[in-house]
Structures are given as structure tokens and as C-alpha cells.
């Protein structure tokens, strides 16, 4: 040993041997530092995540299904479905106080006392014409009125020289000072007509109207045998804001045909309802007697016998003049409604001044006969085979599901005070291939009815793993199918009832998260 230590060559060999031994026993492969084929991170664990939650009272649910506009709540939260229809101006004074449009023509011809004469210089002269006619109306005979709209347009031509101006006046049309209305027709300036808005109409003969024309012409050639004038009067858009005169019996027919939904469209089944209140009200501001005759009033639905809302029919209602609505019908009835939809259908005749032209009356354009229909259905009903189905579109295939996600556990919790059971079927659907890809839930009780106001809690767990997870993620729709049941009891819905739900998930992962998946 001593010799070995003092022999430099053998000393070096010893060192080399020791180094080789050390390398063989302690070194690792050089590939262990070769990261060219490095893929990512190996991991394994479980994340618990909240997915969705909601807290809905009955009003919130009604709002979500867009049927809240017809729901009323009293201070205790009791609910009723309220169909309300108001028809203003079933007969309106505005419609009554109108005249038809006018088109009046007249030809005037006078013999020339000195035919063939040509004057050395032009001379101004005037001719007087007149025309009488009537406003046309089937319903009103007017003695005086305040004119709301209307327009007269004149066209006057002659073979006697050139018409310079025409002075037009009417004894029946009065200006704001009560004077006969006068108008200068001047074709050279393009003034050929006038509006009657704001003017008054006064006559001794119903609806009569006359115009006097003083036609100013400049003449030189008096050679024609006859002097001729042609007059055209075009009247349009006549209405009155107030009139005094006689009104004939005026009749109009109305029809209300309105679809309504008690529950969402996707719900089927029937609801037996009681104590449905039907109320009719009218308002007659004409100052004239009127009559309403209802000949049809019913609620109809698919495959159900129509429910007559008014009995007996026809119902004749005297609409006494009043500035306020008067309730003229109020009755309760029972029936069976479709859960999802129905139609209100009412037809009626309205007659103003049924006795006709007996008395001198005054009518304004603000006068009207208005109608209100109110059908109130308390939310107390029996359900029969009520079913709700809906689909939710989704694009899960756009959300990549890496292979290292092994299992998805969905945990649903429902906390409800709603008085019926909800049995759910959830199916995943691939619309491109028209196949049900997976049944997530089958006849699962999601909500247990609460009849005493105490919340009932249901927990539902859905476990999805393996190939099933891939199938679910290829789906683009989820079909939600619910049965509503309550053991034949009365369903009493109240605004204070609520549904809370919570959806959470556990995501189990085990595998390699590749770096290229992190983008």
C-alpha cells in the first residue's frame, strides 16, 4: 500500500478506478436531462366547484316564463290570473262627427248681348256666380258645429278673358268673429283653396252649404256667343269637434279574440278552476242613450268544451250616459282550462241613440262608449296530467374535455316550498345525428311537494365518467322533461312560495396535463 501511494502512475489508476466506480454507482442516464420529449404535468386530484344557483319565488318564476303580466298578487301573496281587456272608443264621437268627401261641379252659361265685339283696350269686369250643396252624412244632421278639420279646393275657368281673382264667400261658414267667411281665389298666386279648421258652421237647413263667387276678369275679345264658367269644388277630410243637431241610431259591431297563457307554452295538461269572476263595465260619455248587446262570450281551448263566460246570451245592457265606468255584469263560474293556453272570444253590438232623430242634441268629438272585460281566475286549481318539456341549446362540443378529466359528479340540491312534486327526466341530445346521447336523469324526484309551507329538500347526484362523459360533451341540447304531481290536492300557489336550487360539481382528474392544452 505504501508503495502504491508513492507510485504516481498507480496512484492515478486508483483515482480513475474510483471515479469509474463512482460514475457507475451514482450517475444517471444522460437522457434524464433530455427534455425534447417532455409532454406536461402528471397530476391527480379533485376540484369541488359551484356551477349555478338560483333562488326563485313564484313571481320570479312567472316572470321567467313571461306570463307575469297577467298575474295579480294580493297583500297576502295570494295569486290570481287576471285577464283584462279594455276597449276604448268602441263608438267614438270623433268617428261620428265626420262628413264624407265632396266633389261638386257646375257649368254656368250666359248669352253674350254683343257678340263679335272686340274692345280696343282690355277692360276689367266681374261676374257673380253661386252654388248650394250639402255635407254628406248617414248619421248626423247638423245645424251648427265647430269645424275641426277640412279643406276646400276650387277650380274656376271661363271663356271670358283672363280670371284675375274670385271673391268667394259663404253664409254658413263663419269666421271666429261670426262673420261670413270670405276667401280670395287667386290662380296667379296659386291660392286656390282654404282650410276650415277652427271655423264655425251655422245653417238653417241640415248639412246645407252655399258659396257665392264674384269672378273678376279682364276682357277685350267679346266675340263668343255665350259667356261660360266652369266651377269645381273639391272638399275633403271634414270632421267636427262639436255639433248641434240630430243624430240617427248608430250601430257598430266589435269582436275581442285574444289568446292567453296561464302557464308556459310547453306545459300540457288541464287545470280545474273554480270561482272564476267575470266582470263587464262600460262608460258612455255621449250624453245619448246607448245599448250594448253581447251575443258571444267564452273561453276556449284545444280539446276542451268552451266555457261560456256570460249567461244568458244575448245579454242586453243599457249604457246610461255617464262620465265613469259602470259595472254592468259580475258573475262567478267554474271550469277546466288548458294548462298552457286558451282564447277569450267576445262579440257584441253597440248602438248609440237607438231611438234615432227625435231630439236636438249636442255631441263632441271626445264622446265615446268604452268597454272593459275582466276575468279573474284564482290560483287554486287541481292539476291533471300536467307535463312540462323544454330544451336548452348548448355547444358543449366547443368546450374541450381533456382525457385527464376522469369523472364529473353533478350535485343538485332543491329546496322548495312549492306545493307539488316535480319529477324530472334529463336527456342529452345530439341534434346533428338525431340521437339521444345519454340519459342523465330518469324519473328523478327533484322537488317534493310542500303543503305546510316548510321547505322540502331533495338532493340529486349525477355521476358521469369514461366514455359517457365524452358522449355528453358531444351533445348540443339537453331535453328537460318534467311531470307535476300533487296527489289530487288543490294546488294553491302563493307569491311567498319559492324554489332554491344549487348545482355544484366535483371534477376528478388523473393524468397528464399537456402544455399544448393550456392554450
Amino acid at each position, binding site marked *: 500500500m505504501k508503495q502504491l501511494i508513492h507510485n504516481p502512475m498507480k496512484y492515478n489508476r486508483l483515482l480513475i478506478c474510483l471515479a469509474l466506480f463512482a460514475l457507475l454507482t451514482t450517475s444517471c442516464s444522460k437522457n434524464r436531462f433530455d427534455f425534447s420529449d*417532455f409532454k406536461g404535468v*402528471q*397530476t391527480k386530484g379533485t376540484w369541488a366547484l359551484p356551477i349555478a*344557483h338560483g333562488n326563485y319565488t313564484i313571481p320570479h318564476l312567472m316572470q321567467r316564463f313571461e306570463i307575469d303580466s297577467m298575474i295579480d298578487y294580493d297583500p297576502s301573496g295570494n295569486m290570481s290570473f287576471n285577464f283584462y281587456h279594455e276597449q276604448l272608443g268602441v263608438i267614438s264621437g270623433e268617428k261620428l262627427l265626420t262628413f264624407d268627401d265632396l266633389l261638386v261641379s257646375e257649368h254656368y252659361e250666359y248669352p253674350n248681348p254683343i257678340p263679335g265685339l272686340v274692345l280696343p283696350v282690355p277692360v276689367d269686369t266681374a261676374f257673380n256666380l253661386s252654388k248650394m250643396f250639402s255635407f254628406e252624412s248617414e248619421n248626423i244632421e247638423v245645424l251648427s258645429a265647430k269645424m275641426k278639420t277640412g279643406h276646400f279646393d276650387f277650380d274656376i275657368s271661363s271663356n271670358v278673358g283672363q280670371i284675375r281673382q274670385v271673391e268667394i264667400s259663404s253664409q254658413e261658414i263663419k269666421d271666429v268673429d261670426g262673420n261670413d267667411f270670405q276667401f280670395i281665389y287667386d290662380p296667379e298666386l296659386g291660392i286656390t283653396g282654404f282650410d276650415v279648421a277652427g271655423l264655425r258652421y251655422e245653417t238653417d237647413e241640415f248639412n246645407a252649404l252655399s258659396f257665392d263667387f264674384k269672378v273678376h276678369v279682364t276682357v277685350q275679345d267679346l266675340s263668343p256667343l255665350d259667356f261660360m264658367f266652369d266651377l269645381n269644388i273639391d272638399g275633403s277630410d271634414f270632421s267636427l269637434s262639436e255639433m248641434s243637431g240630430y243624430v240617427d241610431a248608430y250601430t257598430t259591431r266589435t269582436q275581442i279574440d285574444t289568446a292567453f297563457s296561464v302557464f308556459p307554452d310547453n306545459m300540457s295538461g288541464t287545470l280545474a278552476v273554480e270561482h272564476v269572476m267575470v266582470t263587464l263595465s262600460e262608460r258612455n260619455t255621449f250624453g245619448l242613450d246607448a245599448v250594448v248587446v253581447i251575443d258571444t262570450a267564452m273561453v276556449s281551448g284545444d280539446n276542451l268544451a268552451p266555457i261560456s263566460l256570460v249567461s244568458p246570451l244575448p245579454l242586453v245592457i243599457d249604457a246610461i250616459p255617464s262620465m265613469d265606468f259602470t259595472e254592468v255584469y259580475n258573475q262567478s263560474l267554474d271550469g277546466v282550462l288548458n294548462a298552457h293556453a286558451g282564447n277569450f272570444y267576445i262579440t257584441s253590438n253597440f248602438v248609440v241613440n237607438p231611438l234615432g232623430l227625435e231630439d236636438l242634441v249636442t255631441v263632441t268629438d271626445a264622446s265615446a262608449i268604452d268597454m272593459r272585460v275582466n276575468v279573474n281566475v284564482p290560483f287554486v286549481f287541481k292539476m291533471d296530467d300536467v307535463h312540462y318539456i323544454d330544451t336548452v341549446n348548448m*355547444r*358543449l362540443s366547443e368546450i374541450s374535455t381533456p382525457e385527464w378529466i376522469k369523472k364529473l359528479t353533478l350535485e343538485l340540491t332543491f329546496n322548495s316550498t312549492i306545493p307539488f312534486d316535480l319529477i324530472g327526466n334529463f336527456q342529452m341530445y345530439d341534434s346533428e345525428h338525431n340521437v339521444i346521447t345519454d340519459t342523465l336523469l330518469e324519473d328523478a324526484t327533484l322537488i317534493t311537494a310542500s303543503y305546510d309551507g316548510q321547505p322540502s329538500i331533495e338532493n340529486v347526484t349525477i355521476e358521469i365518467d369514461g366514455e359517457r362523459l365524452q358522449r355528453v360533451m358531444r351533445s348540443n341540447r339537453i331535453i328537460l322533461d318534467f311531470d307535476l304531481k300533487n296527489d289530487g290536492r288543490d294546488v294553491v300557489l302563493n307569491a311567498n312560495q319559492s324554489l332554491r336550487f*344549487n348545482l355544484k360539481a366535483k371534477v376528478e382528474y388523473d393524468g397528464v396535463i399537456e402544455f399544448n392544452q393550456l392554450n
Partner: protein
Amino acid sequence: MNRLFLALALVMAVATSKAQEVSPVAFLRMNPYQTNTNVATDLPYYCYFSVGVGNFGASIHYPRFRFRDLFNYNSDDSPSTFDLVNFAKGLSDQNSVALNLNENIWTFAYRVGDGMLSFGHNYRAQASSEFGYSLFKLLVYGNESLLGEDNATQVNFSFDGQAYNEYAVGYQLKINKHISVGARAKLLFGIANVTTDAFDLSFFTDPDTYALHIREDIGMRFSLPRLFELTDDGLTAGGPFGLADFYHNPGLGFDLGINYRINNRFSVAAAVNDLGFIKWNQNNMELVGKINDAGQFYDDDTFVFEGLDVDQLQLIVSDASYRRMFLDTLKEYFNFQLDETGGYRTSLPTSFLVRGSIDVNEHNRFSAQFQGCFRSDGFQPAVTLAYGGSFFDKIEVSGTYTMMKGSLVNIGVGLGFNLGAFHIYGATSNLFNINTGGSKWRDIQAGIVFNLREKSDKIGTTTPDYF
């Protein structure tokens, strides 16, 4: 870019140090660099000097896992995946990653009267990162096993580090045969700094609803060389970077020491090192992270995710553009703000020691030392029992046994050779790396220094602090 900057900060923190090792070099009695521990040490040299190779020290602290266990391998033994589970298993409740570098660029010392005047230039980098196991447990295993307020994940990081140049002037004076004192003044120039004021995250999962509650409070300050610049686009590559950039952040430091020899056998010493500061003036930035009020998931400085409402959920699963917008919105809650900030001051990691020694004979000395270091994460004490001996006038050895917080068994050795005019040495303070608590650590200190003996003394016979 802010996240890039955060990653950079993490890397910096990972590559930094703890500076609490008790080096066996301090007990190699002929080694001039024992004055790094106690500037009052009386050396038997007329002069000594070194350039470049005088003293290099490095230490690294790292979690307990083994490198090869962190990976799964392909058939050809190349790494295929990083095994997060094994990584997490290798962590303790509290972990540290640290690196400490100390390079003596040059040293020159010569005797003046009864003392020795010394000059030196060192490059030093110190940084450390402390982190708990809880964050990685959460990231690796998920939150299923951490449901409930009692299991809330509290994440407290600390990233602190600085690199600087140190120009030192020291003087050791032997007052009489009992007392030797020393002092060293150091002019410092900071190069880079990371200071963590706060890095607190908390994560809580409601056991009933799985609602996630996340809070964050992050405040970090940086002073970086102009390799990086903060612009409107965030942190970008800057430059040019020149020698002058090493001299923008001035500081001062002091080392003080005293030796007292009671008699021929017993002596005591005390020293304070790195008492000082650096004022960081150049390219300072501040990173602030708090939960932003970005909408529905914000509640009292907390991100609270209780799930989506039904309409949102339907949009998420059916509308890709909404999904993208939603994810972008989520990011807004966790936005980090990186801004320029004014100058700030950091303290040096001041340490002190108290040592008692007994010389069994002229060749063998036993010492007991208590030392402590004030760091950003608190006072770090350590107790060392050491042996220093010399043989054949050419060889000196030292051995240390150090107990420190979280690491009770640390056995170090030092070995030095006196070969004429130069002294070559090497040491490590943790030879076996056993029972090191939350993390492992390795260190090395080595160098070659040229010296001229004051007299023709042999080691152990005329060592100035032994008579």
C-alpha cells in the same frame, strides 16, 4: 406582461439565498477569510492578497424532494412528465428555496503596526423564498380535501433578494495581549433587489355550496437593472445595460468584532456583520395585487364565486363569444398592477455571533458559538459546536455541528493546505444533509489566497490569538 414579471420575480426568488450557514472556514485558524465572520481576528500574516479566486461561497436551499422523483420517464429514460403529486409529497408545511453567492473579486491586506489594514471587493447575492405546502396541496390535489373554513388555504410567500457590489476597508487592531478589535466599513452598490412587503393569498371552499372565496394581498417592490423597463405596454426589455448601472444604488455597511483572550486556554469573541442598508434608486417598480371590484363576484375585497345564475350558465355552454368575455372578466378580478415607484431602502441581513473557545493544546481548539441573523422572515438563530485543528504545519481541518431552526443536525467540515506562499482551502457546512427539516441545503466555500507570513511561524505555535 405583468404575469411575466411575476414569473420573473418568482425565478429570482427561487434563485436566491438564506445566509445562515455557519461555515467551517470560520474555524480554519490560518484562513484569512475567517475575518468575514469576525473582523477582529488577528491573522499571522504580514500581508495576504488574492484576485478572483480568493473566496467563492455558494449555498442552495431546496425542498426535500429528489430531482429524479419529480419526473416520470419515457422508455429511453428521458423525462416525459413532471409529477406534481411527487412534487407535493416532497414538500413540508413550510419550505424554502434559497441561493447565496459570495465572490471575492480581490482582497489585499497588510500589517500596519499592531494591526492589519485590509481592502476588498466582493460581489454578493442573497435571496430567499419561503412558501408553505398548502398552495401546492391545493393546486395538485384540488380543493376537495380542503372544504370548510377550518381547512382554508392560507398562502404566505416571501420573495426577498438582493445583489450588490461591496467595497470594503477594514482594520484589525491588537490592543494588548488580551484584546483584539476590528472594524470594516463597506461601500455598497446595489444591482438588483426584490422585496416582498406582502404576498398573502387565502382560498376557502364552502363545504355546502362549494362557493370559492379568494383573497389576495400582494405588494412587492423591485429595483432592476435597465435590462427591464416599465412602459405603457408593461415590462419590456430595456437597455443598453452598462457598467455604470452597477453603481446607481448606494449603500453602507459595517462589520464590527472583538476578541478577548482570557488566558492560554480560553478566549471569547463577538462580532456583528452586515450592519447597514442599500438605498435603491434606479428603475424601481411596485407590484400590487388585490381583488378588483370587477362585478358580481366581488364582495368586500374577496372574490366570491357561488356559481352562475341560470341565464349565465346557458350562455356559457352555448355561446363561445360570451364564454370568452366571461373568462376575460374573471381575469379582471385578479389583475396585477405594476407601476413605477420611488426610492426605498433595504437593510442588509445583519448577523451577530458570540463565541467561546478552548485550546486543548496548540493544535486543537474547540469552540461553541451562538449566532443569529435578522432576515425578512424573522430572527434566525443557530448554535454551533466546532473543532479546529492543525497537522504537520501544512494541513488544517475544522469540523462543525450546527443546530438551527428546522434543521437540527448539520455537520460541516473544512480542509486547508498551507503550501508555501499560498493557502488553498475548501469547506461545506452540511456534509450529510440529514434531518434538515423542511428543506435540504448544500453549500460550499473555497478559494486560494496568497500570503506572506509575519514570522516563520508554524500553525499552532505562533497563531496570534493563541499564546
